[in-house]
């Protein structure tokens, strides 16, 4: 294994294939370990992991918490209200507080793109981006890749359709970076108003209809459509969105017969995905994504803390 080349995990853009493969291999081994029921290794014993969440998230926070605890770290959850008078001051004030606490691993979620990068310049801890604005969500893409790899045996040459609100999705961006780096054929599918400008320059194919976008796909990845997008007028109504971009059995029939269905959660049933598809055990791997989330986060914590110790020795 090559030593991971960064102090933090802020983004997948620019991360080279061998490092992604290493993280996925390590995560795979943690997935097996977790299934075997063996936990509480003492790898991170005496290390402090802080979950710093400026935005609500039960799922990701719990996943990091579990990952940290399984590796023996002391895990502290900090939720910072986003309604504070001055969000920015809170961010940097928090950084100095964290330094005083001698935190080793810092997991950050923030509603603003680039906030973890800004924090990483001010804290001594290794920073893990747990989702920043509409920028990136690296561990989500890693867990998605691991889930895909377990089902399809490899990532290379697969066709992955990422569907829905790509514009506001950090999950989509991280997945695009990871999957294109690993030589997947990536498509984005959605109405033009929900696709970011010049997204094709990220190496993806653009579709505005589900029929064409899903044709022959190995993986169908649905994105959450947030209710406020409809309020913002980007989509006229939930029923129109579901009719044309919601995943149901008829649209899924365009994909390969063994295509898997993914969703980063939480789902809006009946908006971007039909319950019949979401709950179909032969197609949906949504539950497994959650399981792989813990394994991937263990691998990331392991890798970064190993890196920090190695750098300390140097």
């Amino acid at each position, binding site marked *: 294994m090559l030593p991971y080349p960064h102090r933090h995990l802020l983004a997948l853009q620019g991360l080279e294939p061998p490092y992604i493969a290493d993280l996925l291999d390590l995560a795979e081994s943690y997935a097996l370990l977790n299934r075997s029921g063996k936990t509480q290794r003492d790898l991170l014993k005496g290390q402090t992991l802080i979950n710093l969440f400026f935005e609500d998230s039960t799922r990701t926070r719990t996943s990091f918490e579990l990952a940290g605890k399984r590796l023996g770290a002391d895990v502290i959850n900090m939720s910072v209200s986003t309604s504070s008078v001055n*969000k*920015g001051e809170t961010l940097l004030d928090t950084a100095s507080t964290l330094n005083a606490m001698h935190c080793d691993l810092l997991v950050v979620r923030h509603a603003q793109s*680039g906030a973890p990068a800004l924090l990483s310049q001010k804290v001594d801890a290794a920073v893990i981006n747990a989702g920043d604005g*509409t920028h990136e969500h690296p561990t989500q893409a890693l867990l998605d890749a691991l889930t895909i790899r377990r089902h399809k045996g490899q990532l290379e040459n697969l066709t992955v359709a990422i569907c829905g609100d790509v514009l506001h999705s950090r999950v989509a961006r991280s997945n695009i970076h990871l999957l294109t780096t690993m030589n997947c054929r990536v498509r984005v599918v959605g109405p033009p108003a929900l696709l970011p*400008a010049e997204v094709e*320059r990220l190496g993806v194919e653009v579709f505005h209809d589900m029929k064409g976008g899903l044709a022959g796909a190995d993986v169908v990845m649905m994105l959450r459509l947030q209710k406020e997008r409809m309020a913002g007028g980007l989509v006229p109504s939930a029923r129109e969105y579901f009719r044309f971009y919601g995943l149901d059995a008829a649209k899924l029939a365009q994909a390969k017969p063994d295509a898997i269905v993914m969703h980063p959660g939480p789902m809006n049933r009946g908006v971007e995905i039909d319950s019949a598809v979401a709950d179909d055990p032969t197609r949906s791997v949504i539950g497994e994504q959650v399981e792989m989330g813990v394994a991937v986060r263990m691998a990331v914590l392991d890798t970064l803390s190993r890196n920090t110790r190695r750098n300390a020795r140097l």
Partner: protein
Amino acid sequence: MTPMRDTIFVNARLLDPGAGLDAPGSLLVSRGLIADHGGALGIPEGAEVVECGGAVLAPGLIDLRAALGEPGAEYRETIESAAVAAAAGGITTLCALPDTQPALDDPALLQFVLRRGEATGSLSILPYGAATKGCAGKEISEFGLLREAGAIAFSDGSRAIAEARTMRLALSYARAFGTFVVQHPEEPSLARGGAATEGELATRLGLPGIPPAAEAMMVARDIALARLTRGHVHFAHVSTAAALDLIRAAKAEGLAVTCDTAPPYFDLNETAIGDFRTYAKLSPPLRRDADRLAVVAALADGTVDAIASDHQPADPDDKRLPFAQASAGGTGLATLLGITLARVHGEDLALPDALALLTCRPAKLLGLEAGRLARGAPADLLLFDPERAWKVEAGRLPGKAQNSPFDGRALEGRVLGTWKAGRRVFG
């Protein structure tokens, strides 16, 4: 107070683009006025001699557009500190934006800024009047009274005058007082919440984008209103090829349309925001390189009437924020000349043409006597070495505000000295 000694600048390269003068010679200042200049001036008895060593002696620069912290944001910049930075940048006349707190929509406020400018002794500050009350974009302000009080022209500063009807009224009303309206050309409904130019880079960074067309469509609308009203519209910090094409065509049509741009738009492109570098967050946002090149071309072909510093002071706390939350704008006073000279070194502009954009051309636009080396004119002078190298370092710039988008930029062309009405104010 002892009477001012005469000063004679010897061995200078006298450069006055407005008069077509570019020749070696001397310049004599007496009682704060330019008394004479030429190739063979004698040195009067008792005069202070400034040996220029072949450096360029030019009119002090006229900055068409700068935001000052006063009144209301003194933590960012004071007029006093802006004057220090301006002197170091060779600027002797500066037009101050009116979108302060409170906005300069009342003659008393305008006179306050004028007095504060006079008190610096180094910088003539010519405030814009607020085009609309409170710069809120609704009702036009008292152009006549503000003009009498010294308003150089009218603008809502960094806010666009959004409603077509309001802009129409402002343009037609300005005609009555022989003045013009400065627009921040950006369609607000397309720019709202935006932090960077829409496109690949903003997509990668996950930043809300502003489409470049937001500029062109406001320019197109206001050109139509200039045609309708026969009023004079001036577009500030124009940054896109599409907008410049429209302005070029409007000028060819003979409409009263003028524009300026600012150094970031011909020296930097959007990649300067890099990994969320908030010092490069500007309004309008930095563009892609094709637009930057179009700005360079528009400087060369005369479409652009002036280069303004577009100085926007910010406090570190305004900038040490996640990118979309950080305030937009960069300092520009100390780097105005150096960045402009980079286009001379890059052979896009001849030195006299570059200097014209900082002196006689904004002077003509504003109807000022300044910006010339004319006998009898106030001795507002700038001495600079076009070749001397220096490096822009945020944190070590003159004045209080340090938020330069050019941090780390190596430049050739340094101000050696600045004189205001014959008195040395820098160097």
